[in-house]
């Protein structure tokens, strides 16, 4: 019999405590970010999709078309093409395509890039109307980014 009342009172008390906690939080300020109106700044190491880095001296990409990123990529989403201009010693980059639909944002390409020609973009609001919108031409993106 004492167990019965004990159950009753401890149970009621536990319920009341719960109500108290939620009421306390009811009056506390909200912690959420009002997303479309406010946005977060991404941390410096944020791994978005990749972008080409511009060489400040030449105004061109730092890429030496070694193809290491292409080889390192587990999903095969990078296609690098270069051409050897006449008179030049090294190949220069002609196109750098990222198929973002396959990319898993692992960062192995950036890690394997010797000349640090690629970096992570800070874009995270990626939305597009079609699959094709996710095949990025990174050379074009680099040019757009640099010409304000």
């Amino acid at each position, binding site marked *: 019999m004492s167990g019965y009342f004990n159950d009753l009172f401890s149970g009621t008390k536990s319920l009341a405590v719960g109500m108290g906690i*939620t*009421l306390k939080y009811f009056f506390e300020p909200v912690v*959420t970010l009002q997303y479309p109106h406010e946005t977060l700044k991404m941390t410096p190491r944020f791994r978005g999709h990749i972008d080409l880095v511009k060489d400040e001296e030449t105004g061109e990409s730092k890429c030496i078309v070694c193809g290491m990123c292409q080889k390192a990529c587990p999903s095969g989403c990078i296609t690098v093409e270069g051409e050897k201009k006449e008179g030049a010693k090294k190949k220069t980059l002609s196109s750098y395509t990222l198929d973002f639909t396959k990319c898993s944002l692992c960062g192995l390409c950036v890690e394997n890039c010797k000349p640090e020609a690629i970096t992570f973009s800070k874009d995270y609001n990626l939305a597009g109307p079609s699959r094709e919108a996710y095949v990025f031409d990174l050379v074009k993106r680099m040019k757009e980014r640099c010409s304000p």
Partner: protein
Amino acid sequence: MGNYTELLRLLAYLVGIIAFAALNAAYLVWLERKEAAHIQRRIGPKEVGPYGLLQPLADGIKLMTKQLIVPAGADVILFKVAPLLILAPAIASFVTIPFSETLVARNINLGLLMIFAFASLNVMGVLIGGWGSNNKYAVISAARAVSQNVAYEIPMLITAITMVMVAGTMNLNEIVMQQPNIFKWYIFRFTASPLMPVAFLIFFICSLAETNRAPFDMAEAESELVAGAYTEYSGMGFGVFFMGEYANVVIGCSLATILFLGGWQSPFGVPADAHWSLFLFKPGILWFLIKLYLLCFTVIWVRWTYPRTQFYGLLNLSWKYLIPISLFNLLLTGAMLKVFQS
């Protein structure tokens, strides 16, 4: 001519009641979302209108424009009638609820009984809807709803009978008249029974269970039965179910207000010569709505605090705690009334 005014009066009340029920359903959803959000430290609806106040409108338009899907193998007539079976009795119950001294559609002598009689139709709605939609989750949900309602109708009715014994009438307006100020509210009427607050609690718990509200929402337990009896309903079929649910919550809270919290009476009482404070004390509807919505707030608050009960826990609570205590209270009240009033 008297006939016509009577007819018009009836019509006006009918329209008023339906509008009240619909508005309540819409804005209780808003309140529920807002309150849940703030309990969880979010903001909740805020885009449509100031503070998201037009959100229910947007929701309503969305529900109305959605296609009504009748699942294959369903019993079409029963499937379509079921939502109405939940809403119609609730609206009918509003007829006898006194919003203020004069604002009551039909001041029926058996008002309390009438509400219980109509509330008992509710189960039929869930049952038929669940059975008619040819879905196993819905059938399980219907079975749960019935056992739950049967189990909780008993303590609820016993408590209601206790209140009728104390009040000596089933006319809701007269019950309110007997509680002119806060000390005479039945919840604090210790001369009738020292267990009155407990009786209020029991009544409140039972009305939660009767209206399938959390933590007793086992009939629509979303993590177990998807949406229970409402699984197959889309668009306005679901909307009407929803309106009925909220209308029932309002009825339950109104009844608790009337039986225990003095209905439309001001907690301070109305002094006989209080002209200056007419606005503060007199408008009964204001007090009624304040009490009503405070109870609704509590209902929602409870929902967002507790996990769902399990079936045996529910029946245990009813049979081991609520029924014995309410029976004891009935006996005690009877004895106390005999001692103090004769």
